[in-house]
């Protein structure tokens, strides 16, 4: 079998990176982000990136570390700016931002991965988001046409991976990862845990191996929490 498991993140990304490329990354906020691979992208020195990701990390973690080093030309995101350097670059016009409604962004990545070049959604009709896009009536409502996204490279964070590259995500760390995994010309995954062949329930695999070209064991699993919100312990 062609070996998908790679020794480390640098080797996993070998030959896949080039200046000006588009990288899609999984995660919502700082939850379920491919931490290990993001560090390796930073190390590689690649620049002028277009990043497709719901959020842009924080100043010193997640995709924010690429922003801090000015490696990013454009973000395609739904919610950003939890991050001072992002705000500075954005307001200074150094960084291009394409805002997508969150569900539209998720669906655009699913569509790109599923061979669907465009679809219609009611989301954004009558707002700035629909400006310059086709608006069309179906039944008694207007819908805006949105296009599928295919990235040069997709980076995902999984909980478990088997030797074939079948992936399982954990709880809300699933978020954008399954669609990101499908929308890359090449998809590289990092998994917290590598499990033996046959140990994943075939009914419960979130990303089938066909979508994963290479994977590694994640060595960064910091999982920083953005808004730790707790209630008092019951007496």
């Amino acid at each position, binding site marked *: 079998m062609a070996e998908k498991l790679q020794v480390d993140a640098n080797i996993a990304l070998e030959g896949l990176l080039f200046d000006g490329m588009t990288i899609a990354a999984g995660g919502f906020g700082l939850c379920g982000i491919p931490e290990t691979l993001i560090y390796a992208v930073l190390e590689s020195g690649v620049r002028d990136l277009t990043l497709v990701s719901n959020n842009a990390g924080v100043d010193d973690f997640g995709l924010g570390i690429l922003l801090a080093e000015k490696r990013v030309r454009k973000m395609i995101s739904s919610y950003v700016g939890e991050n001072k350097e992002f705000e500075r670059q954005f307001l200074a016009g150094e960084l291009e931002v394409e805002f997508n409604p969150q569900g539209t962004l998720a669906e655009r990545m699913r569509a790109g991965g599923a061979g669907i070049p465009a679809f219609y959604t009611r989301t954004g009709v*009558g707002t700035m988001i629909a400006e310059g896009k086709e608006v069309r009536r179906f039944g008694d409502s207007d819908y805006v046409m949105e296009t599928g996204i295919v990235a040069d490279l997709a980076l995902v964070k999984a909980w478990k991976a088997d030797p074939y590259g079948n992936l399982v995500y954990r709880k809300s760390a699933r978020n954008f990862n399954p669609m990101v995994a499908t929308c890359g010309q090449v998809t590289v995954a990092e998994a917290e845990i590598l499990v033996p062949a046959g140990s994943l329930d075939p009914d419960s695999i979130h990303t089938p191996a066909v979508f994963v070209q290479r994977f590694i064991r994640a060595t960064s699993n910091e999982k920083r929490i953005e808004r730790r919100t*707790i209630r008092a312990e*019951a007496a």
Partner: protein
Amino acid sequence: MATDTSVKGWTRDQMAARAALEMHDGFTANLGIGIPTLVGNFIPPGVDVTLQSENGILGLGPFPTEREVDPDIINAGKQTITELDRTSYVSSADSFAMIRGGHIDLSVLGAMEVAENGDLANWMIPGQMIKGPGGAMDLVAGVRRIIVLMDHVSKSGSPKFRTHCTLPLTGANVVDMLITDLAVFDRKSRNVAFRLIELAPGVTIEEVRAKTEASFEA
């Protein structure tokens, strides 16, 4: 909850409690960040509501205790949260399929402005840092019923329930009910005008009229 009648209008908790009365047994609801999140604290006994979070959780539990904190369980506000015995996790695409497909009964959201035609603005102020729409545009476009909770007037005292929204829209003709600290406005369908249906304690209709730019029935 105790109502302090010396204070005119509703507190944030009281606004949330009023919104919670719109929850019916068996509903699935999505609560926005801020005051809307409080609505979960006031769901009447015997009314079973499942809360959805658009990042991919159906069946949100309460905030965790210190010991229960799990970085892999966060809500759409990026707060740590817990799961319940009914919880399922889905991808963000599947989560928004629920939302866009009309499978969520009710969403409660905050707003900067609501217009008399049901337009909603709550995502950006030109000239200020834009953070992006997040899931708000999807929610207002897809959820069956949209309730807005907002202060009746801005900090500078200007009306927020307006003839037209002055800020960029989150959605056009999407608001079904508006609950402010002064009053409740409702409409039976998106083809008709809002009607004032309740006044907060100590608030007169004259005061509401004075502080509202929008036309409404009463």
